[in-house]
């Protein structure tokens, strides 16, 4: 099986208010098709790790390989391309652009990638929205949607470039019971039906239980 993401001895420190080690010797390997969750107490460094793995945080020691290549040598511009092509994000907060319609929000990363024509991208975006049951909202402005709907749009956006891996930071954290359940089911379905590789931070035990593998963290270490 192909290894999608691998870390070698990642260390990270914060220097304010005083120096402390937030990540300590993190070694993980994620294979294609795996659905992995990271769990642990609040403040143990889960989000920090995810930001490092997502290439947005560059201030760490050790090595990060995505799709077999190290991220250390890459320029800011090349990292942006990696994020665009290979990583899909779902955050706790939806982060939709209120200036755009739902459809345009989903299309943006694909327009940036420029692999398909605009027509094809629009078609693909509709497909994703349909799969998540919100295609009827496509032409609304993003800010008019409910919390659960917004998070589903965010998932559609994460999927638009058929990423190598989807990363989620407590994607159900802001949602009520019913909507959490729905988002959880979407992740389940992505893993089972499409073999989508996923790495999701959660402290919902029920969510974690549905995964192939749970990475447990405490005080910046994997336990």
């Amino acid at each position, binding site marked *: 099986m192909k290894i999608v993401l691998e870390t070698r001895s990642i260390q990270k420190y914060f220097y304010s208010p005083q120096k402390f080690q937030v990540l300590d010797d993190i070694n993980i390997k994620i294979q294609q098709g795996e659905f992995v969750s990271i769990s642990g107490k609040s403040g143990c460094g889960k989000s920090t790790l995810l930001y490092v793995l997502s290439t*947005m945080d560059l201030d760490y020691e050790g090595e990060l390989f995505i799709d077999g290549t190290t991220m250390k040598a890459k320029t*800011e511009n090349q990292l*942006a391309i990696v994020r*665009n092509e290979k990583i899909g994000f779902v955050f706790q*907060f939806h*982060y939709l*652009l209120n200036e755009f319609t739902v459809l345009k929000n989903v299309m*943006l990363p694909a327009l*940036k990638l*420029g692999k398909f024509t605009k027509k094809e991208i629009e078609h693909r975006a509709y497909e994703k929205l349909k799969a998540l049951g919100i295609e009827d909202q496509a032409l609304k402005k993003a800010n008019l949607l409910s919390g659960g709907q917004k998070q589903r749009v965010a998932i559609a956006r994460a999927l638009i470039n058929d990423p190598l891996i989807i990363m989620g930071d407590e994607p159900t954290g802001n949602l009520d019971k019913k909507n959490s359940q729905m988002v959880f089911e979407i992740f389940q379905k992505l893993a089972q039906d499409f073999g989508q590789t996923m790495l999701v931070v959660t402290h919902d035990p029920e969510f974690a239980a549905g995964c192939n593998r749970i990475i447990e963290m405490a005080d910046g270490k994997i336990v």
Partner: protein
Amino acid sequence: MKISLLLNIAFSLLFSRKKQTLVAAVGVLFGIAAFITLLGFMNGLNDLLDGMVLNRTPHIRLYNDLKATERQPLEMAFPDTNTSHFIRSVKPGSGDLKIYNNEAIVSALKQDKRVIGVAPKVSTQVFYNVGSIDIAGVINGVEVAEEMRLYRFADYVSGGNPIDISLVPNSIILGKLAAEKMMAELGDVIQVTTASGERSTLKVVGFFQSGIQDFDKVQSFASIATTQKLLGKESSFITDLQVNLNDIALAPSLAIEYSRIFGLDALDIQTANSQFETGSRVRSIISYAVGITLLIVAGFGIYNILNMMIYEKMDTIAILKATGFSGADVRFIFISIAMLIGLAGSLSGLICGYLLSSLIDQIPFNTAALPTVKTYPVNYDLKYYVIGALFGFLTSYFAGYFPSRKASKVDAVVIIRGK
């Protein structure tokens, strides 16, 4: 594809802040409109004021000055450099103002590529006889067609057709103030006495009004032939050659050159009228300074809205970066926003500036000094529009430069963690 996507995002961000965008664009509009109007009006005035003298002044005047011979006979007799000559009370010898061989000089000048025109002239001092009183004056014998082409003679003649002096024998265009003193009307016959005492009668066919009192009191115009006849001189008698050049800046150097080649005295326009250039330059500098100040103020407007927008759109910037837009992309987006505001403001500013200028151009401005000017003068030179647009773009670029750099440096992690 990529640029159109970034521009598309820029547009969307702009439209989400319509009011502020409008205010910032209107700021640029005011700056550019004021710049155009100010420069058009100031330079219109400049042209008018300069024109009063400079239009009427040849770029180079060739003439024979009344002065003592530079090489006195004594020096020719004793050319030895060791000898010193002391000659006192040297006087000019012959008072001959005539330019000899002037036809050959004129044709030589006309061959010169740098010359647009040569107008020969005979000027002579006369007395206008008003009853028993004589008023001193000058009659300029001119080639009226050349004078109209090179010196806008027609603009300064009222009452009659300037061509008439070459058509009606013994006719004159009288200085307006001289005419008033003499109470001469169109069609009247006046009497003049030349310096040598000859009396002649001349028919008034028009009035000359330059707007400069001292000039209009004294100067009158007739044809070359009429003036030669007044003086009792032959038809080759010419006292001045007025030369106009393609490039006025060459006048001083060409004056020296012609003076040497033709053995005549030469006076260039810069030396004759240095104070006018200074005045125009100061007025230009003032209008540029005011215009640019207004544009800088407008630039701060753009700077403000951009800073505010970046502050408000932190989430947007963070998510763009998280989904694969680079810092350079984000920077391009915000620079584009600044430039779009600048572009809209500049274009509408140019239009408003043009409209304002044409409005000023309609305001009546009647002055006795300038008979052909009926409204305030405005210069519509394309140059000012180009400079205005250029400054508009430049200001908006600089106004956008620092905010967009800030936007490109936004750390997505900090923003996302903040939620």
